[in-house]
């Protein structure tokens, strides 16, 4: 019996498709996070493998490893038995092509030039236009026969640009095509066309990796599904053995510890958002947040949550609707007005949106507190130091001093600096956009505790998070967003990983 098993493992079944790319025990860490932990993955000729997982599960890291952008810390990736070098150009040479969410084309160059980008045929630096056209035409004929190859790429629709990228991959004789959320900017007929192309490529023996958040698409196109969770491999299954619920369970599957949730007194409505719309991004958003309440906002990346926060806080304009704080409407597209009305925002990307890296911890902490630290326009360093010292102490910020550059701090401590800025102001509403993103576990739980304490003190909190455990353990209510709308409003009792995921991915 055991002998039989061994021989069965060693020799592949005769009709099993050939493995092109094989990743074994791949591990990749970044400062503060282990993005991939001992993951096995393979891509087979003539098959579409869907790569699934929640935000932050490790999909992007795996894709970047396969495309040669990163080197694995441990483990190995081989393509047809040849080890992959960590260099995008050599990944291309070896036959791995990646189609990113947004097309990477040179807008002013023609379709033909883009397809042959960097490999223009010719001699002595002269480009042979004839050979270029010939080869480009051959590739375009397979994926997008409706396109003229002399059109500048910039004039094409996003869908056509994507097809050009696929044509480029074909002209490179790629063996593997990685498609990272290729359908996000496509309309349903365009998706159908893309799927026809994918099926055609599959029939020609390419191995395709398909990443999507939309389960309907996965069931329509994939042959196999590989699910990652928290950087680990959950499993790889043939699509025939799966259904919608099974996939969701694989994606969220962890035991959600039932954090003790002390009921808090919930007060009056503090912030009311009514019928807020922004063309193409947000569609008729209405909800409110009460004093002492934590409203969780869940949804996939691109569902419009950060865009909503940007509109509420006045960073971006909106077309219609109102935002009211304690019954008073606040002026659109003016962060200062939002701050004065009592809104605070801890944005998603603290390095880009919240901190001035060249400035000290102290100056960053007081960046929105000029009214508290100045007199007649002059700064009081004493007052500034008092505030900085107080907030650094209460938040346990680890820094050599308040005068070191904020960019020298770790992610968790940087986030505390941003939080400290708002705590010193005591806003009525605090919007937290992915407050624990890229932060190590210790700082994460500190920040979670802090959020609860703030709510207990009567602050209204809108918590945007892609991490279901965070949403589930902290929220009094959960709003789920999908494609720019609120598609579900759940009570604490109704909110489970499965219901939230289900609303976020299907509808």
């Amino acid at each position, binding site marked *: 019996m055991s002998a039989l098993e061994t021989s069965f493992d060693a020799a592949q079944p005769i009709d099993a498709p050939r493995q092109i790319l094989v990743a074994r025990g791949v591990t990749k860490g970044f*400062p*503060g996070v282990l993005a991939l932990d001992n993951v096995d993955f393979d891509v087979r000729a003539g098959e579409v493998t869907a790569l699934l997982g929640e935000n932050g599960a490790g999909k992007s890291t795996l894709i970047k490893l396969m495309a040669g952008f990163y080197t694995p810390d441990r483990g190995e990736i081989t393509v047809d038995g040849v080890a992959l070098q960590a260099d995008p150009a050599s990944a291309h040479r070896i036959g791995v092509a990646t189609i990113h969410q947004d097309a990477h084309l040179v807008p002013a160059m023609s379709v033909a030039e883009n397809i042959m980008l960097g490999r223009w045929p010719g001699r002595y630096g002269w480009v042979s236009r004839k050979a270029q056209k010939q080869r480009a035409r051959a590739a375009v004929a397979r994926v997008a026969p409706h396109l003229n190859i002399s059109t500048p790429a910039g004039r094409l629709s996003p869908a056509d640009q994507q097809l050009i990228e696929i044509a480029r991959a074909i002209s490179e004789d790629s063996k593997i095509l990685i498609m990272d959320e290729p359908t996000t900017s496509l309309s349903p007929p365009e998706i159908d066309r893309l799927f026809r192309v994918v099926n055609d490529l599959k029939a020609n023996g390419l191995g395709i990796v398909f990443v999507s958040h939309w389960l309907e698409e996965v069931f329509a196109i994939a042959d196999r599904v590989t699910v990652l969770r928290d950087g680990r491999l959950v499993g790889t299954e043939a699509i025939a053995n799966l259904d919608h619920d099974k996939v969701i369970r694989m994606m969220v599957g962890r035991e959600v510890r039932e954090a003790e949730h002390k009921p808090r007194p919930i007060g009056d409505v503090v912030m009311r958002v009514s019928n807020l719309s922004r063309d193409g991004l947000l569609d008729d958003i209405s909800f409110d947040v009460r004093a002492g309440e934590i409203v969780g906002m869940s949804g996939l990346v691109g569902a419009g949550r950060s865009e909503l926060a940007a509109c509420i*806080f006045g*960073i971006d304009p909106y077309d219609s609707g109102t935002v009211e704080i304690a019954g008073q409407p606040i002026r659109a597209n003016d*962060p*200062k007005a939002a*701050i*004065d009305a009592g809104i605070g*925002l801890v*944005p998603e990307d603290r390095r*880009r*949106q*919240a*901190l*001035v*890296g*060249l*400035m*000290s911890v102290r*100056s960053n902490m007081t*960046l*929105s507190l*000029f009214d508290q*630290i*100045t007199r007649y*326009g*002059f*700064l009081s*360093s004493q007052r500034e130091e008092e505030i900085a010292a107080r907030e650094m102490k209460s938040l346990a910020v*680890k820094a*050599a*001093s*308040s*005068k*070191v*550059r904020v*960019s*020298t*701090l*770790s992610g968790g401590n940087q986030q505390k600096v941003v939080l400290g*800025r708002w705590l010193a102001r005591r806003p009525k509403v605090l919007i937290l956009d992915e407050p624990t993103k890229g932060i*190590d*576990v*210790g700082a994460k739980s500190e920040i979670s505790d802090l959020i609860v304490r703030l709510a207990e003190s009567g602050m209204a909190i809108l918590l945007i998070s892609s991490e279901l455990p965070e949403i589930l353990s902290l929220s009094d209510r959960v709003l789920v967003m999908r494609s720019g709308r609120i598609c579900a409003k759940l009570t604490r009792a109704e909110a489970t990983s499965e219901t939230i995921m289900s609303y976020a991915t299907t509808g």
Partner: protein
Amino acid sequence: MTLENTQMSDIATAGHGKPPGLFGRISFIDLMQSVGLLAVILLGGAIMSVLSPVFATMRNIENVLQSATIIAVVAIGQTFVILVAGIDLSIASVLVLSSVLSVGLVQFQGLSPEIGVMVALLAGLGIGLVNGLAVTKLRIPALIATLATMTIGRGLAYIYSGGTNIAPVPRFFVDLQAARILGIPAVIVLTLVLALIAQIVLSRTSFGRSIYATGGNPLAARLAGIKTERVIIIAFMISGLMSAIGGLLITARFEAGAATAAQGLELAVIAAVVIGGVSLFGGEGNIGSMLLGVLLLGLVQNAVNLLNVPPNWDSVVSGLVIAAAAALDVYRRSYLEAGMRKKVIATKSKQPPKA
């Protein structure tokens, strides 16, 4: 606790010997930049005094400083603009426009010298306002917007003056050039006073802090409630005003409303500011260090003159100095970043590994 909190400021203040309130904010790195520049200046000065008997004379040094004042005053304004990650090419044109207005309004229109000076300064503020509005409201890149006002400004100065220098100048300018305060030429004192005010504004006021934040990270500044557009507009207006003051100084120096002067001055000013450690990417730099950049460039110019370098070579030499300074700056920056990364990794590895 005290040990942690004081290290940076202690080094900075001890090195400068200035009241801690004013320079306490200058970081250790900025200080190194200044010390490096100062070392180059002193070394170059020492070499020059060996090579040329004229160099170390009081007369020559005063001459170097006097001619540096015009660049210095204009560079103070330019520093504000570059700190908000902008650039102002219109400065030399504003300068000559101010110069011809300050004289021409008296000569041609018979107005009083006070009004001439006032109008000249207002013209500078006005062009700065136009630059600022073009950059913020119309979202024209600063390089292009100020290129336009540079061309227009110079054209207006030519039209108004008829393309020649206007003389004689009101008595006021002659007196300004001749005046001495405690034996030091008044224009040098004026420059230092303006520099001091600028440094105080930058380091001690919320407006100055807003300048650094806007240049360092405009999005973060805006999200913190800073009116970044207003900050940028005011920075351009300061640059216009300082250029107009530079125009008054050049009027005094040349004793003429100088329509044709200051050709290429904008590039010399930008070069001096960058040599002085003000980052073209914005958000980094200070006035003191910037003045050393102006001084260094002035010394190079002086050295080229004294050593009888053929006149056509002097711009080659100045160019090499600029290139060297810029390369050093890039090197310094990448070295620092590498250092910071190491520091971050070091603090990380000290934390206990998580499960």
